[in-house]
């Protein structure tokens, strides 16, 4: 191959000579690479937007919630209600040593929180200090509840973002302020800004977290707890423990261990697996559509090059007659094909990048949006450019081999 300014000029000339044809052919490749990159970026952004809903949430968690029994057991009728108690916490810890955190929740809905003239509807959530391992708080001011708060049953609270913005419209650090929630006053010790959308008994936004024993006393709940959150130690899948936990609960609270509906178990591991599968499927689809479109574009290029070669039989014959080797012709056709795909494809890459950054601005511009990353990485763009080059070579192969078959005699015969 002779690398010379004229080599490039010749390629540019022959592409520019048929402007509309090159444009239309290039569009196929342009659209293909655009689709692939745009869908890839969009898919990645979507995944991040959706994942941000689970932000700060332990992935290896199960939540156990008592429900009505649906099977008769030991002489008792079905349809019976049962409740979990404090003792279940210790029992679970002892009998299932693979568990890491076992923490109960009990909550009171629809409590009015008041600070001066500002009021807001809040959900009082009685929790232990180790609840932070289940749903990670993002502390903006102050601190989260600690062991002493629980042990001494202090009337302190950590308020969610929406409670904070409603009760303290002028902002500032509210720690130390007393607010009234329901019947009693609590001192604010922290503000939790976490905005994940998974909610266990109400989302963290609208909750006022209070030491669990305090809630039980104020609302006369005795030893009852509403639900139990557990996480497995790292390396152990929570699903593998589910059956044993069910057995233990069933024996203690007298329901049929095979009665799946007596105790509702929400397993986040399964939830995440579903979402993961969804996105695996989605990216498969993205690749299928994107590569399919590029392939269609490449076939278009190959086709047009075929026509071009046919049209240029005489020209190629002349070139051969005055000393071009078959290799010269081959490289010329392949270079043309590469140039067409690469130029069109680069526009596709640039267009996709521009549109993705626009999308990113729009999505991240929403109020209280989690920042999501829609943009494709630099290397993805580089790899797509390389892919285009390879595809350009492939597209040029068939036309080039046809061009090489042209004998110089044909040039004269074609007159």
């Amino acid at each position, binding site marked *: 191959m*002779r690398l010379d300014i004229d080599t490039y000029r010749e390629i540019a*000339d022959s592409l520019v000579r048929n402007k509309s044809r090159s444009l239309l052919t290039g569009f196929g490749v342009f659209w293909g690479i655009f689709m692939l990159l745009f869908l890839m970026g969009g898919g990645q952004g979507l995944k991040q937007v959706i994942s941000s809903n689970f932000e700060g949430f332990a992935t290896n968690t199960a939540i156990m919630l008592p429900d009505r029994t649906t099977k008769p057991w030991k002489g008792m009728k079905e349809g019976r209600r049962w409740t979990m108690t404090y003792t279940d916490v210790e029992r679970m810890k002892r009998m299932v040593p693979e568990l890491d955190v076992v923490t109960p929740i009990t909550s009171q809905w629809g409590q009015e929180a008041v600070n001066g003239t500002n009021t807001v509807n809040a959900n009082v959530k009685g929790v232990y200090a180790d609840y932070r391992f289940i749903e990670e708080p993002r502390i903006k001011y102050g601190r989260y509840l600690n062991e002493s708060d629980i042990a001494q049953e202090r009337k302190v609270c950590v308020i969610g973002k929406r409670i904070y913005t409603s009760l303290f419209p002028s902002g500032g650090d509210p720690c130390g302020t007393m607010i009234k929630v329901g019947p009693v006053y609590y001192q604010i010790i922290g503000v939790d800004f976490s905005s994940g959308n998974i909610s266990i008994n109400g989302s963290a936004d609208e909750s006022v977290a209070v030491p669990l024993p305090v809630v039980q006393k104020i609302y006369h709940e005795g030893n009852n707890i509403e639900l139990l959150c557990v996480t497995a130690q790292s390396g152990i899948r929570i699903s593998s423990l589910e059956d044993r936990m069910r057995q233990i609960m069933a024996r203690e609270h007298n329901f049929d261990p095979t009665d799946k509906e007596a105790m509702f178990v929400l397993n986040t591991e399964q939830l995440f697996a579903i979402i993961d599968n969804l996105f695996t499927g989605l990216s498969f689809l993205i690749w299928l559509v994107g590569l399919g479109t590029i392939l269609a574009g490449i076939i278009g290029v190959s086709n047009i090059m075929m026509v071009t070669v046919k049209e240029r039989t005489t020209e190629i014959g002349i070139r051969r*007659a*005055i000393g071009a*080797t*078959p290799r*010269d012709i081959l490289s010329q056709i392949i270079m043309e094909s590469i140039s067409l795909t690469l130029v069109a494809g680069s526009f596709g890459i640039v267009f996709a990048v521009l549109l993705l950054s626009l999308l990113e601005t729009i999505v991240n511009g929403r109020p209280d949006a989690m920042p999501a990353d829609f943009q494709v990485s630099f290397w993805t763009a580089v790899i797509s450019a390389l892919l285009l080059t390879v595809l350009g070579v492939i597209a040029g192969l068939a036309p080039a081999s046809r061009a090489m078959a042209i004998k*110089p*005699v044909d040039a*004269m015969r074609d007159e």
Partner: protein
Amino acid sequence: MLIELKDVNKTYNNGQPLHVLKGISLGIDSGEFVSIMGASGSGKSTLLNIIGILDNYDTGEYYIDGRLIKNLTERQAADYRNRMIGFIFQSFNLIGFKTAVENVELPLFYQGVNRHKRHELAMQYLDRLGLADWAGHYPNEMSGGQKQRVAIARALITNPKIILADEPTGALDSKTSEEVMQLLGQLNREDGVTIIVVTHESGVANCTDKIVHIKDGIIGRIEDNREHRASVFGSSTIMK
């Protein structure tokens, strides 16, 4: 002998086998101005293609400057064509989207001569043929005679041993034809270029120094024409 053909045979096998060249033996010395004349179908174009290494022959031997031209690879053939032979075609065969000077440069491009040098050389040749002012024009902006002169410049630029002209005047009027033939004659006399013209026009053949008559694939008569009296229409014109 610059060109030597020994009992060259060529058969086309497109359906019905067609024995086009039936044992051609011909020698052409360096510096000769020869025409190969014959009616259409006589095999003269096939002969020219073989001499020009554009086509291969079946049996016999063909030497250029003592080198046997047989079973060459495409690459070798391209190289020989590029360095030893300059072509002039009936329909000029210039590349339409290239300017005159770019067309003239093209053989040097395939030799790998650098851009600056080949442009300079191409301009020299165009100037010599009186086309310096037309260097930047495209073929479709030029007259037939100008186009043929560009083609001649392209044939000359590699300084070849042989110029092969296939009906060089076929697409030109009589006046231009005459000019082109005079130009070829001048090149032959002044530069000593060996020129072989294939034609079916006796007037054109008459401009050359030696006329090889070919008929039905066999060389008939070789006429010495240094007096330029072969044409029945007189020595000074080409009748169209």
